[in-house]
């Protein structure tokens, strides 16, 4: 399984760079336009919730028609709370609902010092 790793400042100045990299990786797996867009949106929203200070690691594990992305360490407890707390109620718009719509699965993994890593899994539709 191929692996790509990236460390980027959390500052929004680098969001466009991250989007391009995510797009490029998804493109190598022949993702459709909307699938590329979904994965970019998932990573972008996670980073947006993570604040602007410090840096974050993003790793991509490339399968034959899937990409597993790990983003962290994230220190905003609100992210873990949103992703591990009760399911959103109908009409409730939060990070969890966004991720549920744009990736096939996600999970939260504990890291050192109370930080977390978020795992995102995106599959390419069979065609």
């Amino acid at each position, binding site marked *: 399984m191929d692996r790509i790793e990236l460390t980027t400042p959390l500052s929004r100045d680098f*969001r466009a760079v991250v989007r391009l990299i995510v*797009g490029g990786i998804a493109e190598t797996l022949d993702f459709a336009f909307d699938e590329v867009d979904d994965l970019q949106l998932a990573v972008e929203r996670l980073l*947006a919730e993570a604040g602007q200070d410090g840096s974050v690691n993003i790793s991509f594990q490339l399968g034959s028609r899937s990409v597993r992305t790990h983003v962290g360490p994230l220190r905003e407890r609100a992210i873990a709370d949103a992703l591990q707390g009760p399911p959103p*109620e109908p009409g409730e718009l939060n990070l969890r609902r966004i991720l549920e719509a744009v990736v096939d699965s996600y999970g939260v993994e504990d890291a050192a010092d109370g930080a977390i890593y978020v795992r995102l899994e995106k599959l390419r539709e069979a*065609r």
Partner: protein
Amino acid sequence: MRQGARTRTPSEAAKAREQDRLLLRRYHQGGDSTAREELIERHLPLVRSLARRYAGRGESLEDIEQVGAIGLIKAIDRFELEREVSLATYATPNVVGEIKRHFRDKGWAIRVPRALQELNASMSNAIDRLTGRLGRSPSIGEIAGELKSTPEDVLEALEVGSAYSTVSLSQGPGSEEDLDPMETIGEEDEGFDQMETRTSLEPAFDRLPEREREILRMRFEEGLPQTQIAERVGLSQMHVSRLIRKSLATMRDELA
């Protein structure tokens, strides 16, 4: 020729405000796009004046004015006739906000090569054409093939499109690329819109234009793919994608 800096007398200012009101009524109640254009023209000196404050920061004044003009157009489109404030007062924070946002996170994108801008301009139609032909969303490689380009350039051009695009001042509210918040689709949504504040993004949701709220509801509550949303609202898939991203970013920014 740019308007000089002569200060208006109180009666001139009152007359100008009344003229703005008449034009706003013609535009919002009568759908008169020429009134919209006239309003834009009348307030471009305000945009220029505000833009000059941000000159010398690595962007040409012309580019800053163009970004500021987007803020002005949004203010005109969003202005509610019941408001007691003048259009100039209402537009000023919109123009400044647009310029600041540009410097904050989009400044890199306005200096893109013309070839990428042209590629971006042709992309929306190509995606919709391919979606119709293939019966599914096309891959980046397929879009590149359709446009005789490369996947790398397509990705870059998509990124260009996510930044502010150049806006024609004569563009009417019916244009596809015009984010006309007054445009309404369907019924008032009963999903996100009526929920009480519960999560981080909710407080800002109500402040989005109705069309954006409806698109978010379709995407995240109904779980519809972009292609179906695009069909329902009569926009291109690419435009729907941009509106979703921009709406979420706007909501987050408002709460920051």
